[in-house]
């Protein structure tokens, strides 16, 4: 197990390093950033000074070496627009994004698992059909459109909830529901199919035959076994939710990392883009790492490979 963990840590470090390099070259691919960040009518001296100040006058490999060595120390330079450190801007926004992603994850687990369990238990009933229909629809609706429709219904027409901004529980309801929709559909569908598999097993039949109450068959014997594959799906979904949060945050003007990143992309504020993307890749890799360890812990076959 220790070998496995060490191997996975080494792998994760390499991945984050490569991801950082890819993003650096991607951003530099778009040409000399100075041209984009300095007004077109600026005097040539200001242009040169800006290039020197940000190190753009050095050859690309030197820029790369500098970038890697300073980013390892957590320094991505100053935001070009805000004149504060890019990393501090990103860290400032992280809690809001985490809050949104985690609450959406919790909401989807709470809603999806009962739907999936009931759907599987009452297979082909009306409830099951409604449940399956809901999951199919939920996976086809793009989250940004769902967000717009929810804003229209709850903020414009009935004026129950605020349409944008952050800070209170009321502000979080709509973005959370929007972000959770896709995961609810995915989890419910997955729970239903794994539960169907488990419910066919011999030990469930034995439990039924021996008169065990339905509720304890479902919760104690069936769901417990169906939960292992579900757990992997849930922890991987957290990464997807962080990605989805980028779009949902823009729709609802939620003050998180996604919005910061979008603004930075629109304004070509590269230090902020690099720092933001680095943190997302880092979080993503950590989630994958934890999922793998968790899975290896539960299923010994994996770590013996």
């Amino acid at each position, binding site marked *: 197990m220790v070998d496995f963990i060490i191997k996975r840590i080494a792998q994760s470090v390499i991945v984050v390093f490569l991801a950082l390099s890819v993003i650096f070259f991607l951003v530099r691919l778009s040409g000399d950033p100075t041209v984009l960040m300095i007004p077109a009518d600026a005097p040539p001296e200001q242009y040169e000074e800006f290039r020197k100040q940000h190190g753009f006058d050095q050859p690309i490999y030197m820029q790369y070496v500098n970038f890697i060595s300073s980013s390892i120390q957590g320094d991505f330079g100053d935001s070009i627009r805000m004149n504060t450190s890019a990393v501090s801007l990103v860290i400032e926004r992280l809690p809001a994004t985490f809050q949104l992603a985690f609450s959406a994850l919790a909401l989807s687990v709470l809603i999806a698992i009962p739907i999936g369990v009931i759907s599987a238990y009452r297979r082909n009933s009306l409830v099951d059909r409604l449940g399956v229909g809901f999951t199919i629809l939920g996976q086809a609706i793009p989250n940004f459109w769902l967000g717009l429709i929810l804003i229209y219904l709850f903020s414009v027409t009935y004026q129950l909830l605020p349409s944008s901004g952050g800070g209170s529980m009321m502000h979080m309801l709509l973005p959370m529901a929007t972000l959770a929709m896709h995961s609810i559909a995915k989890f419910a569908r997955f729970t239903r199919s794994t539960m169907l598999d488990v419910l066919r097993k011999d030990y469930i039949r034995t439990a039924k035959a021996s008169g065990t109450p339905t509720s304890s068959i479902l919760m104690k014997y069936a769901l417990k076994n169906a939960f292992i594959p579900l757990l992997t799906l849930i922890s991987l979904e957290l990464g997807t939710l962080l990605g*989805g949060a980028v779009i949902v945050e823009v729709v609802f003007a939620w003050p998180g990392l996604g919005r910061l990143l979008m603004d930075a992309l629109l304004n070509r504020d590269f230090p902020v883009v690099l720092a933001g993307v680095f943190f997302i890749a880092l979080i993503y890799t950590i989630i994958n790492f934890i999922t793998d360890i968790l899975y290896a812990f539960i299923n010994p076959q994996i770590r013996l490979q």
Partner: protein
Amino acid sequence: MSQVSVEKRILYKTNERQNGKVVSLFKRLVKNPFGFLGFLVILSVCIVGLLAPIIAPFNPVETDLTKKLLAPMTEGHLLGTDQLGRDILSRIIYGTRISLLIGVTTVLFAGLIGTTVGVLAGYFRGWVDVVLMRIVDVQLSFPFILLVLIINAVLGTGLKNIMLSLIVVGWVSYARVIRSEVLAIREKEYIHSCFATGVPQWEIIVKHIMPNLFTPLIVLASLQVSTFIIAEASVSFLGFGVQPPTPAWGNMLNEGKNFILSSWWLITFPGLALVITTLGINLFGDWLRDELDPEMNQNR
């Protein structure tokens, strides 16, 4: 009987069997209400896209400020007009073309690149495989949509660039699936006998491995189409991707969101078009997967 005529006869019989397969697959499709519904939706979307110039009641880019923000069903505008007086229905009809173009071409190219890389990695293993798997790992360390967004932001907006960014990000999932399929096929006995009897490598790959990849490829591609269509719409909605005045569902929603307080139809109809299309593709894709690959069936 000569060798050639025997081969021809075998070939003929296989063709006949293949045709029979397609016909019986279609018969099963007609019997499955959801799969068939999905098929009909896809068919209608394709027809609408192809016949856009004939069906569309107005010019989708013609502005008329005297007719801006007309509600649906007024002055011959079935779904109303937008902030520049352009007919929403016509813009949605023309937007179909963008979504179809994105869905089909990106999946095709991503599939082509991904399959090539996957086959090479799975068959030759060694450094090709190592490099591929590291690329896969790096791509998996970013959320899909974020990577598409960043590449698009770097390359610049526009239809070509959004297609390019989707292909660059999308081929990886094909490469992964095909690689693992090839790894499994490579260990089959009939491939080992090919090695033993000295069949050339390209022949092993083309004749004995590739035909087995058809099913996973079709299944993956049918499910990827809707993912890519939604991704394009999301990126265009965020202001990158396809730019106005070119009508695309994503940028229509982006422009429409500014008028959410007064004109609900601007955000409603392009979104509905998007949902109906992806729903159709998903229903058909689910059915196809269940038919071709019963082991993956989620709704047993």
